[in-house]
């Protein structure tokens, strides 16, 4: 009997504390005490993924979800228009990319701050400082069923940023790319030069088809 208990003690008694310690020491580990999905609205099973295609239906659902959470939604056209504005260049309008590092590096909107709310410590100071002085904050993730932009906005709202400042790009990056809009790569500090080069190339293509 003693031997069997020893075996169970070894498997469970050592395994569970080991799991706790490893998660705690891992940079990407989960904070057990946090609510990662604030103001979460449970999805109906029928609304959950796997059915392909109807991205626009997902976007409509996202817009209604945003309204229920108290955030406004912006269309791609509105964001595209804002990207050329003086407010955007002077950071009166701030863009926040709520996706992870790999997604951000693969392509993001110009001058977007990276803010992955699952790992807020990485960029929180920088993002909070920008949000405090901005008059409008546009948050995006992949769009449609992706709710990370809403959770990121909720996180920043809970840090003291006014709710009325936030707007979410409901189509997200998937919609942006589907529409054929350009993105910038790499670090944020090079975004403006890269963006102007991209826009210059687009204008050339229009003039000399």
């Amino acid at each position, binding site marked *: *009997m*003693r*031997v*069997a208990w*020893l*075996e*169970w003690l*070894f*498997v*469970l008694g*050592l*395994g*569970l504390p*080991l*799991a*706790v310690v*490893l*998660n705690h020491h*891992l940079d*990407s*580990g*989960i*904070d*057990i*005490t*946090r*609510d*990662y*999905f604030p103001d*979460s609205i*449970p*999805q109906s*099973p*029928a*609304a*959950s*993924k*796997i*059915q392909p295609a109807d991205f626009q239906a997902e976007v409509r659902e996202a817009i209604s979800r945003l309204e229920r959470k108290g955030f406004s939604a912006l269309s791609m056209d509105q964001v595209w228009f804002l990207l050329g504005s003086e407010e955007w260049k002077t950071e009166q309008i701030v863009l926040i990319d709520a996706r*992870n590092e790999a997604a951000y590096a693969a392509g993001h909107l110009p001058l977007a701050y990276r803010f992955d709310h*699952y*790992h807020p410590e990485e960029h929180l100071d920088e993002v909070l400082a920008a949000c405090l002085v901005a008059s409008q904050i546009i948050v995006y993730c992949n769009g449609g069923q992706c709710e990370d932009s809403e959770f990121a906005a909720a996180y920043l709202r809970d840090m003291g940023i006014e709710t009325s400042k936030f707007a979410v790009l409901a189509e997200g990056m998937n919609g942006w790319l589907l529409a054929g809009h350009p993105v910038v790569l790499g670090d944020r500090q090079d975004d403006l030069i890269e963006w102007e080069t991209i826009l210059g190339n687009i204008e050339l293509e229009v003039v000399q088809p």
Partner: protein
Amino acid sequence: MKASALCVVRWIIGGCFVYLGWVKTRDPVAFLKVIREFNLLQAPLLMNVVAAWLPWFECWCGLLLVLGVGVRAAAMTLAGLLAAFSIMVWLRALQLMASFDGSFCSLSFDCGCGSGEVFVCQKLLQNGCLFIGALLLVWQGAGRLALWPKVGFLKLNQS
């Protein structure tokens, strides 16, 4: 059953759990999101605990099987986990069937198992095989090349 066959079973099951657990530990946030999609755990604390600790625990139990340490307890724990996972995959599949036109076996989704998007029937079959293998180890013991072969229920029965 031949001791060498038991050893192979142990390595296969242990290897699967070490690999699948390790994949999940690399991106616990992705695992957390999948857990949320299942709609079975509502409390944030419960979701976090499962997403944070379960992958490491799977790795640990898998490693014990590979090494042949505490095999019966580890195999029984993994059999229990497999049964629970299979029930959850089954329930999730039934939920998704409500908005899916194809057959049950043509339904695929990311079950959070660490292997990405999988076909339901394939996943349930895979889990079933691993479950039977785990029960075999509980019944028959570690087989060859186990580091700690004498510890277990056989010893318990003899004492």
